[in-house]
């Protein structure tokens, strides 16, 4: 899978390349609607914002977690803590490549003990990232429950993991690649497939 552009400096390129880079399956408004729906579903499922913690998986999951937190506070008028959880050292393919740069882990001040943690990621694929996130969380605390919210579920799970909140189910073949771009990081909000 070619990873999407990771350099912040390449924002202009990404925008220009957006069209030839594959078919757009979600545009900015679709993403906003999906996140609004996910926010409401989280609130409905959890019966309010109390005891919720959102943890995004870097890089783009963190931005999604912050957006969901903002929507929830808009709706409920209560702040929901949002942080990030780096899974690099817990990955099962750590030994198969050179050691990778670590990404920020920011646990909100209240911690995660006895809270309901909603993990947020952009694309759910094999499920291996989520497994490593569950392991990483084990070393940080004991949540009361863990839920999973993703913007895109593209199928092809290799582990018994499923998402509780899904922005869009996107049936794909293994040769296709799905790219999520977010304004905070890539300068534009869109999901493309090619």
């Amino acid at each position, binding site marked *: *899978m*070619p*990873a*999407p552009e*990771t*350099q912040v400096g390449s924002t202009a390129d990404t925008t220009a390349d957006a069209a030839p880079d594959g078919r757009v399956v979600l545009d900015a408004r679709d993403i906003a609607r999906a996140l609004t729906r996910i926010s409401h579903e989280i609130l409905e499922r959890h019966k309010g914002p109390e005891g919720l913690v959102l943890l995004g998986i*870097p*890089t*783009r999951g963190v931005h999604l977690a912050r957006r969901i937190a903002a929507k929830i506070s808009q709706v409920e008028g209560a702040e929901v803590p949002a942080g990030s959880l*780096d899974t*690099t*050292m*817990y*990955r099962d393919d*750590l*030994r*198969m*490549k*050179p*050691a*990778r*740069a*670590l*990404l*920020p*882990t920011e*646990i909100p001040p209240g911690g995660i003990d006895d809270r309901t943690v909603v993990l947020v990621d*952009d*694309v*759910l*694929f*094999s*499920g*291996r*990232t989520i497994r490593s996130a569950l*392991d990483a969380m084990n*070393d*940080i*605390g004991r949540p009361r429950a863990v839920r999973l919210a993703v913007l895109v579920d*593209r199928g092809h799970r290799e582990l018994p993991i499923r998402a509780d909140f899904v922005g869009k189910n996107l049936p794909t073949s293994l040769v296709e*690649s*799905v*790219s*999520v771009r977010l304004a905070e990081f890539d300068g534009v909000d869109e999901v493309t497939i090619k």
Partner: protein
Amino acid sequence: MKKHLLSAADLTRGDALLVLRTAEELRSLADRPIKKLPALRGRTIVNLFFEDSTRTRISFEAAAKRLSADVINFSAKGSSLSKGESLKDTALTLEAMGADAVVVRHWASGAPHLLANAGWSRSSVINAGDGTHEHPTQALLDAFTMWRHLTADPGQGLDGRRVAIVGDILHSRVARSNALLLNTLGAEVTLVAPPTLLPYGVESWPVETSYDLDAVLPKSDVVMMLRVQKERMNLSGGGFFPTVREYSRRYGLDSRRMAQLQDHTIVMHPGPMNRGMEITADVADSKRSVIVEQVTNGVAVRMAVLYLLLGGNESAIGGARAEAGTEPSIPTTDGADA
């Protein structure tokens, strides 16, 4: 591909920044209830110490254990080394035990280099101080401490920052490694010492030199005081300066001199300190002093080095892989899950 860390000169700017950023993420581990990461599970790291050391050995041991590696401590006292075993035979023993990395401190300059390049073993070698030559992880932790205090942007190095390194430069492996690394990171280094304590060939180092501490202090962003290494001076017969009193008058940092510093300037010392000689107690314990923080940062920096050297299938730092190690290594979206 290099898998050793023998000299601060092995690190490109990209490598050095990768170590600093990695250390920054690992530093937060100290605040968590479970101070353990799984990255080096099943790896064996040998601490091979031919020379006394407290903080460096403990720091490496803590770093390796926090990354879940198995640690074997091997010091010259109480081992076959004191019975005259050669470095080669020791290396072959370690190889036979399956060490993935050897952290070596030796009184002879160049010993880690020999261990790494003589073909005796396949382990990674990390120089934890060799004679009066180099101590690269000390330089990294010093640079990390400066970077945390003086640089707001994690993409930046130490460009344009002025660092004064003061004292016994001649016997200091810390000074040499720092001069090399700080130059790589863009800082301007001035070595301040009496002429007798500047090393032969210092004019070829990427630094300025001065004999006048009072002239250098007001311009400096960092003042690093070095220990006067009496044990090495005694070996060569002494005579480097007339009296301790005269030395500390001219090259010691006291509160009068500290008052000349800019508000943001930090005071560092790699330890162990001779209080009252190169640094007075009130300066060492003042708010400007980051000496205790250096020790804390040492664990994070050594974790970063061990992780980057041993965490993957090959080293992420050192030489050709430098640029590739920083950018594309950030896993993202579906690419990471593939």
